[in-house]
């Protein structure tokens, strides 16, 4: 059996994507720590120096902190777009179009095991990335509440506070693999998987309660996580089923 070999091969094929994801996660986490430990302090100093704690005087400094915090959380929330595009285009679609999937299947690897490796390794990277990001984000977000204008009800803040942000990544991966396998061409697969995951995300966002009492956060968050993961599981099942339909 060549499970370690297959793992090494898939890692080598998607080395660039893995490096980009690692840099993105570590960069985001590092930036959050910097904003919380360094930037927030200097913002406070600037605000304290303002006569009568005037708001307008310190607004630029305040923006430097709260704007950067918001952007970091938004980027992580919408990273599922990048995952959907990559999964639809590069993971399966491109391999089917160029024939390299068939090259792999004629080595000692069954299409099923190939698909498993192609899904499991990115999934592991997404889970590890989320496990690193979410705790740091929760800590950074709660550190200087008085300097932030957002709330838990904000779409990105809501998702980044728990496993939901990882669930969206996993769902994007599964939907991308399915569209790639169904369409067999990277660009249409990429477009379709981004569209499908975006529609799912927008639909579920509309069902989040407004206003969101703090006690409702975890039930709402975990319910949405379960729904997104169920979609991911459905898409994965469909992908295996379709692969089995076309290859022995």
């Amino acid at each position, binding site marked *: 059996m*060549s499970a*370690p*070999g*297959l793992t*090494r*091969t898939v890692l*080598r*094929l998607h080395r*660039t994507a893995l490096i980009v994801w690692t840099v993105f996660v570590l960069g985001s986490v590092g930036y959050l720590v910097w904003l919380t430990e360094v930037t927030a302090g200097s913002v406070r100093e600037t605000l304290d120096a303002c006569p009568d704690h005037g708001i307008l005087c310190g607004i630029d400094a305040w923006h430097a902190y709260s704007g950067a915090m918001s952007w970091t959380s938004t980027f992580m929330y919408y990273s599922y777009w990048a995952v959907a595009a990559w999964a639809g285009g590069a993971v399966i679609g491109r391999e089917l179009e*160029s*024939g*390299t999937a*068939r*090259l*792999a*299947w*004629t*080595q*000692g*690897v*069954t299409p099923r095991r190939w698909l498993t490796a192609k899904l499991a390794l990115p999934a592991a990277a997404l889970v590890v990335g989320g496990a690193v990001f979410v705790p740091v984000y929760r800590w950074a977000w709660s550190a200087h509440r008085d300097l932030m204008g957002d709330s838990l009800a904000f779409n990105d803040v809501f998702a980044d506070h728990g496993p939901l942000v990882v669930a969206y990544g996993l769902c994007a991966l599964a939907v991308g693999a399915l569209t790639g396998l169904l369409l067999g061409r990277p660009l249409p697969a990429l477009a379709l998987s981004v569209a499908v995951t975006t529609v799912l995300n927008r639909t579920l966002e509309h069902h989040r309660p407004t206003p969101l009492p703090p006690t409702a956060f975890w039930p709402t968050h975990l319910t949405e996580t379960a729904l997104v993961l169920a979609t991911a599981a459905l898409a994965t099942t469909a992908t295996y089923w379709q692969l089995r*339909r*076309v*290859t*022995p």
Partner: protein
Amino acid sequence: MSSTSTAPAVALEASGLGKRYGRQGAALEDCSFRLPAGRISALVGPNGAGKSTLLAMAAGLLRPTSGTLTVLDGAPGEHRDRVAHLAQNKPLYPQLTIAETLSMGAELNPARWDAACAARIVEQGGLDPKSRIRSLSGGQRTRVALALALGKRPELMLLDEPMADLDPLARHELMGTLMADAAEHGTTVLMSSHIVAELADACDHLLLLGGGRVRLGGGIDDLLTAHTVVTGRGTPEDLTRRGHTVIESRTAGRGLTALVRRDGPVDEGWATEEPSLEELVLAHLRAPAAPALLTPSTTPAPQAVTA
């Protein structure tokens, strides 16, 4: 493994094999044949005859829509480690280097990989193992693809237009490497090509596809012996009346030249000559209605036979 049978081992056996592609119709239909192990077989046929489809199904890449296909005594895809397949467009991962591509071969075929053999084929082409696949020419990619296919030491090689984009020198040299390797290891090879003359040198077996079926199948010597080019004064009917099957005939001046499938000796009035492989193949390609001929070793075993 066949235990008591005296019949030669069979590398590939198809029975009533069919493959339909949605609305495009059937690529193969009721295709039956058997390829004995150890043969170097030429797979020929017009464009769209189903050659690539047959090779892909044998490699476990496509599921047949009907019939059965047995590959090395197993279902297609059951013995992926023992079967090599070289697709027509020679797909390779463009982002990898040659060395990384060969490492992939080693990682995905750990039990069988022959690194020295694969490296030798790459070296013979003067290729730098550190070059990226995307920087290679078509012919150089073919060489790397072939190194990957031979490196796994396959028992059955399925080659789809393997030499199509090689220059004549590289083609000659790589074909030589391939044939020497197959002879040394007793590899069965099924190779499609449009260049019949090239196949004549390399192959000892022929499968001619047409209309979704095998129209002509068997050892090349046997097939050539079964056919004769006759020239003389007479009509095709004269030949048919004596039991010969006229595959193709054309008038030349007041005479007639015909390629016939003989039934017994040809009458004295005709000049006879053994056809070349190219003549045999072309005549059958031009006469799609000619009856099929499979020699006994290439005829599939009847189903459910009791000894």
